[in-house]
C-alpha cells in the first residue's frame, strides 16, 4: 500500500514537470496556431540560464529562487524577441509553414548552447532547505518533489486567474476561439501575439529552470522534451490549460505504475496513451474543434493543370540527371541517389499534406516500414532485390490501410499528432523486437542485386522508379480522384453534398501516400545496405516536413526542390564545419523570411507575375 501511495506521489511530481512544459506550448498554439518546435529549446535555455545564475548568485534560498525567476523572464524575453524578429513576418504564410522557422531556431539554439555551456552535463546545487527527504509511510520522499507537486496546480490556478480575471486574459481567450473576430474588433493582434509568445516561452523557461534540481542541464533536453510537450498538449486538447494538466497527470501516473509491471514500456507509453485518446476523442480530452480561421494566410491557389509544355523542361532535366552524376564520380552519384529518394519521400508527404490537406508528423512510419519490409524480405526469405522493392510499398500501404481508418477522421494538428503516435509505436516495435528487427543495431547486408551493385546502375534504377512515381503522383492529383481529394480539403461540405464519400477518398489518399513513401524507404534501404530504427525516428519525419515546406506546399515541384536544397545544404555544410546546425538554422530562417511560400512557390509566383507583365 505504501508503495502505491509513493508511486502516486511520484506520478504527481512528474506530472507537474510535464505540465509546465506543455502549458506554454498549448497557450501559444491556441492563440497563434503556430506549431512551435522551438519550445523544447526554450525549455533547455531555461535550464542552462538558471544553472549559470544559480552558480553566480549566493547559495541562499533567495539566490536560488531569484535565479529561477530571472531565467524564466530571460527565456520569455528571448521568445518574445523571436516572435517580433521572425514569426511576425510570416503569419500570413500557409498553415504549418511557421514550424519551419521555429525549427531553424531549434538548430541555432542547439549549437549556441554547445558553444556557450560546453558539452558536459551541468548539475546545479539543489535549493537550500529542500535538499533532503521527508519520511512518508516509512519511505524517504524528496522534499523538492513535494514542492513540485504543488507547483503544477499553483501555476494552473495562476493561469486560470490571468485568463479569467484580466482584460488581457479575456482577449487571449477570445483570440483562441476566433482571432479574426478579435482583430475585427480593433484589438492590436500584433501585441497580443507577442505577449502570448512571451508568456508561453516564460513558462517553458520556468519548466526548464525548475527541472534543474532533478536533472542536470544537458544538450539533449530540447528534442527529448518537445515530443512529450506536444503529446501532453494534444491529449489535453490544444489551447486548454486544464486539459494539459489532466493529460500530464494521466501520462505521469500511468508511467509510474507502468514501469513496475512492464519495465520496457517507457519507450512508447506516452504515445500509446495519445493514440488511444485521439482514437476516441479526436480533439483531445478537453479540446473543441477550433473555428476555421477565415482567410488566415493565403488561400490555396488552385493547381493549374499546366500548359502542356512541361516536357520542354522535364525531358532535358531528366536527361541531365541521368548523365551528369555518373560523370561527376562515385560519391556524387550516392548523394544524388539519396536526394532523388528523399524527393520521392517528400513528394509522398506533400501528396497527403498539399492536395490531401492531411498534415503528418509521422510520415517516416511508412518510409521505415518500407525499408524494414524490404530488408526482412531480403534477409529472411532471401527475396531478390526487385521483389524486396515490391514488398516495401505493399508493407507500408498495409499499415496505412489499418491506421488510416483512425487517422483520416481527424484533421489539422490532431491528425498530424496521431500519425506521430503511429510512427512512434512502429519505431518502438522496430527498436524493441530485437529478435526480428535487430533492435537499434538494425539489419545489415541489404545490398542490391549483383546487376545493380554498381552505383551508377542503382542510381539510374532509382531515377527511373522515383521519376515514374513522381509522374504517377502528378497524374493522380489531376485525375478525378485528385480533384475529389482537393475538393474535400477546400470545401468538405460541398464535396460531401456532391456525393463524394470523403472518408473513403481521404483514406485512399492516405494509403497512396504511404505506398510511395514505402517505395522510397525500400530504395533507401538498398542504397544504404542497412536499415535502422532511425529510419522511423521523429527526425526523419521532420526532415520530410521541412523539405515539403521549404520547397513550398502549394506546388507539385516543391518537394523535389526542398529535397535538393535541404539535403544539399546539410550535406555540404556539415563537411566543412562542426557548426553546421547553426549555419543550416540561419539559412532556413533566411529562406523562410525570403520565401514565405517556399522556394518553388516563390518561383511559380514570380513566373506568373512575369507572364502577367508581358
Amino acid at each position: 500500500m505504501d508503495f502505491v501511495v509513493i508511486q502516486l506521489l511520484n506520478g504527481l511530481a512528474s506530472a507537474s514537470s510535464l505540465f509546465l512544459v506543455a502549458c506554454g506550448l498549448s497557450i501559444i498554439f491556441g492563440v497563434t496556431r503556430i506549431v512551435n518546435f522551438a519550445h523544447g529549446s526554450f525549455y533547455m535555455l531555461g535550464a542552462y540560464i538558471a544553472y549559470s545564475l544559480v552558480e553566480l548568485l549566493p547559495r541562499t534560498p533567495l539566490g536560488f529562487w531569484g535565479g529561477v525567476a530571472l531565467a524564466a523572464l530571460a527565456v520569455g524575453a528571448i521568445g518574445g524577441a523571436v516572435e517580433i524578429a521572425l514569426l511576425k513576418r510570416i503569419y500570413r504564410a500557409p498553415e504549418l509553414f511557421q514550424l519551419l522557422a521555429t525549427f531553424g531556431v531549434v538548430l541555432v539554439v542547439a549549437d549556441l548552447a554547445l558553444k556557450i555551456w560546453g558539452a558536459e552535463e551541468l548539475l546545479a546545487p539543489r535549493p537550500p532547505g529542500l535538499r533532503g527527504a521527508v519520511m512518508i509511510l516509512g519511505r524517504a520522499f524528496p522534499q523538492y518533489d513535494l514542492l513540485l507537486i504543488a507547483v503544477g496546480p499553483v501555476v494552473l490556478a495562476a493561469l486560470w486567474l490571468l485568463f479569467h480575471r484580466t482584460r488581457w486574459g479575456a482577449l487571449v481567450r477570445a483570440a483562441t476561439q476566433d482571432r479574426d473576430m478579435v482583430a475585427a474588433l480593433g484589438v492590436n493582434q500584433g501585441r497580443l501575439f507577442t505577449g502570448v509568445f512571451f508568456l508561453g516561452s516564460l513558462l517553458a523557461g520556468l519548466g526548464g529552470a525548475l527541472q534543474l534540481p532533478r536533472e542536470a542541464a544537458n544538450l539533449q533536453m530540447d528534442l527529448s522534451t518537445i515530443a512529450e510537450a506536444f503529446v501532453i498538449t494534444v491529449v489535453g486538447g490544444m489551447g486548454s490549460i486544464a486539459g494539459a494538466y489532466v493529460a500530464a497527470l494521466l501520462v505521469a501516473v500511468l508511467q509510474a505504475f507502468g514501469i513496475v509491471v512492464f519495465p520496457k514500456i517507457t519507450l512508447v507509453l506516452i504515445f500509446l496513451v495519445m493514440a488511444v485518446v485521439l482514437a476516441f476523442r479526436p480533439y483531445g480530452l478537453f479540446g473543441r474543434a477550433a473555428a476555421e480561421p477565415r482567410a488566415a494566410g493565403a488561400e490555396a491557389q488552385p493547381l493549374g493543370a499546366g500548359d502542356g509544355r512541361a516536357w520542354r523542361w522535364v525531358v532535358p532535366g531528366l536527361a541531365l540527371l541521368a548523365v551528369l552524376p555518373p560523370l561527376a564520380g562515385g560519391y556524387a552519384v550516392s548523394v544524388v541517389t539519396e536526394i532523388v529518394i528523399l524527393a520521392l519521400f517528400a513528394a509522398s508527404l506533400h501528396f497527403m499534406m498539399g492536395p490531401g490537406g492531411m498534415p503528418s508528423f509521422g510520415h517516416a512510419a511508412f518510409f521505415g516500414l518500407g525499408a524494414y519490409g524490404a530488408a526482412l524480405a531480403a534477409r529472411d526469405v532471401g527475396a531478390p532485390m526487385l521483389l524486396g522493392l515490391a514488398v516495401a510499398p505493399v508493407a507500408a500501404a498495409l499499415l496505412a490501410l489499418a491506421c488510416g481508418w483512425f487517422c483520416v477522421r481527424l484533421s489539422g494538428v490532431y491528425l498530424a499528432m496521431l500519425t506521430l503516435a503511429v510512427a512512434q509505436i512502429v519505431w518502438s516495435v522496430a527498436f524493441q523486437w530485437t529478435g526480428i528487427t535487430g533492435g537499434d543495431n538494425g539489419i545489415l547486408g541489404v545490398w542490391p542485386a549483383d546487376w545493380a551493385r554498381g552505383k551508377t546502375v542503382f542510381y539510374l534504377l532509382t531515377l527511373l522508379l522515383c521519376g515514374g512515381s513522381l509522374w504517377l503522383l502528378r497524374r493522380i492529383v489531376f485525375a478525378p480522384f485528385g480533384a475529389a481529394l482537393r475538393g474535400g480539403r477546400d470545401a468538405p461540405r460541398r464535396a460531401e453534398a456532391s456525393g463524394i464519400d470523403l472518408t473513403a477518398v481521404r483514406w485512399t489518399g492516405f494509403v497512396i501516400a504511404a505506398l510511395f513513401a514505402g517505395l522510397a524507404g525500400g530504395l533507401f534501404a538498398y542504397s544504404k545496405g542497412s536499415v535502422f530504427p532511425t529510419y522511423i525516428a521523429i527526425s526523419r519525419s521532420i526532415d520530410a516536413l521541412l523539405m515539403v515546406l521549404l520547397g513550398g506546399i502549394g506546388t507539385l515541384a516543391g518537394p523535389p526542390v526542398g529535397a535538393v536544397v535541404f539535403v544539399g545544404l546539410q550535406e555540404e555544410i556539415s563537411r566543412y564545419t562542426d557548426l553546421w546546425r547553426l549555419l543550416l538554422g540561419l539559412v532556413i530562417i533566411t529562406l523562410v523570411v525570403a520565401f514565405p511560400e517556399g522556394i518553388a512557390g516563390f518561383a511559380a509566383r514570380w513566373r506568373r507575375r512575369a507572364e502577367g507583365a508581358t
Partner: protein
Amino acid sequence: MRKALGTAGLGLAAALLAVSPAPAQQGPIKIGEINSYTAIAGFTVPYRNGWTLAVEEINAGGGVLGRKLEVVSRDDGGKPEDAVRIAGELVGDQKVALLAGTFLSNIGLAVADYATQNKVLFVAAEPLTDAIVWQKGSHYVFRLRPSTYMQAAMLAEEAAKLPAKRWATIAPNYEYGTSFVANFKKLLSARRPDVQWVGEQWPALGKLDAGPTVEALIEAKPEAIFNAEFGGDLIKLVREGTTRGLFTGRTVVSALSGEPEYLDPLKDEAPSGWIVTGYPWYAIDTPEHKRFLAAYQNRFHDYPRLGSVVGYSTFKAIAAAIAKAGSTDTQKMIAAMDGLPVETPFGGIVFRAIDHQSTMGAWVGKIAVKDGKGVMVDFHYDDGKNYQPTDADVAALRPAK
C-alpha cells in the same frame, strides 16, 4: 510551376558541381574519421583532442613511411545512415587509406558493414557492442575499446566477491544496455549460482523517470544493484537514489561510471562506494601514462577523459599498422594488424588475430569523494586479455570466412 520542375533539375546539377571530387593527393596518408561530434559532444570532443595529439606527435616524428598523416574528419550527427554516406564520401571521394572512429554501436556496425562490402579497413574506436567483433565480425574490422562483454566480466569478478545474493539491474533500453545486463547476469550467475535476479528497470535513453524508477527498484528489495546508466540518466539516478535511500546498505556495481565524462558532472554528489570501471587519470602512476598526461595537458590545457585515451590510442595503432605493413594496401594493413602490439597510455596492447579485438583493459575501482569531487580509489588495471571467452567460443561466434 512546370518551369519550377526544371529549376529543380538545375538545382540538382548545381549541387552536383559542388560535390565533384577533389583531386587525389599523393603526399600525406589520408585517414577517414567519422564520429558523433554534435550528437554526443561530451565524449567525442575529448576523443578528437586525443587523436589530434597522436597525429601531431606522429607527424612531428616524421610521419609514417616518410609521409605525414592527414585526418579527414566528419560528423555523422548520430545517424547510422548518414555515417554510411560519409564513409562513401571518404573512401570514394577523399581516397582515404582506411576508416576509423565511431562511438555508437549501431553506427560502428553500419560502418563495419560498409567497410566489409567495399573491402576497406575500419578501425572502430569506441563502440562497445560485442557483435562488431563476434556475431558480425569481419576480416576488415578491428576494435580498440574493451567491449561490453569484457567490462561485464571485470565487474562480475568483483561482484562475485560480495556477499549479496539478491540482485537488481538497471540499464538503458537499447543494445548497449541489454547486452551489458545479459553478459553480467550470465557471468555472475556462472561464478555464483546462488545469486537471484529480483528486478530490472529499462528506462528509455535520456528519459529516465527517476522517482518512479528508483521506487520500483527499492520495492524489489535487492541487496545489490548492477547499473549501466550513464550521462544525464546516471545523474538523475544518483541524485534521486541517494535522496530516497536506494543506495543505503546496498552495493552498486556500475559500468563506465568511473569515467571522468560521467563522474565529473556529479561533483560532490558522486556515489561513494560504487564499484565501477573508469579512468582515474589523476592517479595512474605508470611512466607511459604520465608522459601522455603531460603532453595532453600541455597541448589542450585540460585534463584527458577516457575518450582522449581512446582517440590517442586508435591513431597510434593505425600508425603502427601502416608502419608494419610498409604500405597502405588494405590487405597488407589487415595482415599487419593481426597480432599487432601497440604502446598506449594504458601500457602495451595487442590486436587479437582471432577476433580483431584489442586487449586494452579498463580500470576497476571504487568511487570516493575527495575535495568536493568524485574520484576512483583502490583501483587496479584489468588487462583485457584475461577477460575473453575461450578461443573456441569466439571462433564459434564469428561468421565463417
